[in-house]
């Protein structure tokens, strides 16, 4: 299953994984971010979103944009966050591969790093139409790791 993994801090008690992955859905595809913090889980979910479109290793991260959004709860915030990125990618014609996310209550502020879309270089497989409420979940697991996931319509 496509995924990306980076280990967490190596000092002190735990090494908690930070990664993104895709999961199965009949017609479309699920995106998931896992990390020690909610904001990093959101960042990883966004990487998973971009990886639906293209091989993110091919996306240079030299340009950045600032985005912000809010919602009434964490789960709707995840959908709002992903839909904000979908809108920015569509209207700026950019692809992203790295995100710095801050969340305060249900207000999200982020920087997205990427480059202009180049079809020959990035060979985009699909366009994501929108994040959905299907399989939507933002929660901490038994080992305190945050998971943020939902299905996206392609």
């Amino acid at each position: 299953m496509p995924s990306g993994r980076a280990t967490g801090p190596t000092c002190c008690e735990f090494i908690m994984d930070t990664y993104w992955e895709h999961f199965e859905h009949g017609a479309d595809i699920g995106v998931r971010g896992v990390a020690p913090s909610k904001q990093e889980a959101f960042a990883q979910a966004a990487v998973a979103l971009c990886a639906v479109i293209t091989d993110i290793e091919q996306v240079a991260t030299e340009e950045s944009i600032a985005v912000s959004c809010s919602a009434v709860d964490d789960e709707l915030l995840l959908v709002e966050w992903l839909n904000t990125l979908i809108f920015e990618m569509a209207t700026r014609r950019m692809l992203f591969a790295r995100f710095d996310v801050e969340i305060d209550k249900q207000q999200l502020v982020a920087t997205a790093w990427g480059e202009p879309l180049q079809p020959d270089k990035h060979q985009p497989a699909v366009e994501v139409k929108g994040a959905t409420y299907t399989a939507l979940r933002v929660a901490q697991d038994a080992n305190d790791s945050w998971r943020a996931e939902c299905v996206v319509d392609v």
Partner: protein
Amino acid sequence: MDLNLFAEHTDTRWEITPHGNMRVPAVIYANEALIRSMDEKVYEQLCNVATLPGIVQSAYAMPDAHWGYGFPIGGVAAFDPEQGGVVSGGGVGFDISCGVRTLHTGLQREEILADQQKLATELSRSIPAGLGSTGRIHLNDTDMEAMLRGGAQWAVAQGFGNADDLARIEEDGCMQGAEPWQVSAKARQRQRDEMGTLGSGNHYLEVQHITTLYDEDIARVYGLHVGDIMVSIHCGSRGLGHQIGTEFLKEMATSAVRHDIHLPDRELACAPINSDIGQRYLGAMRAGINCALANRQIITDLTRKAFASVLAKAELRLLYDVSHNTCKLEEHEVKGKRRKLYIHRKGATRAYGPGHADVPETLRSAGQPVLIGGSMGTASYILAGTAASEQQAFSSACHGAGRAMSRHQAKHQYRGREVIDELAGRGIIIKSPSLRGVAEEAQGAYKDVAAVVDAADQAGLARKVARLEPLIVVKG
């Protein structure tokens, strides 16, 4: 799916007795093999739809049904506004008015074989496809407003195609009741550079040839012959439709409580038709329909020009244009009484029968063409609406094969290059900007469209008329 879930059934009609909060039964049209292979989420989602206020008769699923967003894809449900009936964004989908139009070319198969490669190259060059592609039309505010209001009629007035095309499009090419002001600035921004683009995923343009006729009488009315070259275009309302879907899903999900609607699934977000948000959604959705109709009309014009530069003899005339993600106000007979109902078709096609006033006069004796796209590299079908279809599922039929395998599995099981080479070996040229996109759309990733179409025919939803196979596929 477990066959014991159905209290009663025939070979093609499987009924779920109301239980829990269901207000009406749920009915799936399919043969036994299709039911067995159908995912259980279809059952769950269809039963959820049957709980919604104001639903009339039954919640229906077509033979190609699969897991959707709130509604199953291949779902049909009718609501009466006078009984607190609701409108649901999930019952329409993100790609508002995604649909298919099929055109005659006046050519026979042997007349294009020598120029097949040249035509494929010219079509892929002329028709923007895939993520990041932009159309050559850039709409300013005034144009955007006019397009959302006028649909294909606006496009023809701008010089894309001709007035003869309009009678062969549902709603004569313009959805009444569109309210451009309900479409947000963000939705318009997403669409500004996307007019006349094909999109990606399962969207395509195909040059096809007719291999088989099943009903000679209807084929004569439709002007179809074995060996005819046809062109089919499958796409929708692009960024604008998607943005409308996203925004209203959010608003309806949070407003349901205010309207006293219990949502068994947040994705089934809906609002009473006779509410402010319900009316705003209808106004925006109808504008989205016009956007899709305009888009397919512009792509038709680009296709005609591409053909003209390679095969000057070709004359592309529109057979019909159907939409399969809509909510439309229609009149139907229910228990002997005519009623005005809001019909949701999510991944389902309208299938008016012979004699219906809304079928163009030249096709009326045969019923409305129902255009069923196969997966990439497989057959497509032309069907005709039947008189029986109204009683079956408010004059509705399937829309395509439906996926049998997730995109995730498909891209591991298939290699784009091998798919392209295998199709080339069968005389089919594929043009796509992405090998991974090709893998995800491989034939094996979809259900058998022939089985779906046979089931629709046997169930009386629509009648088989013709089978087509591709020669050229342009996909995004």
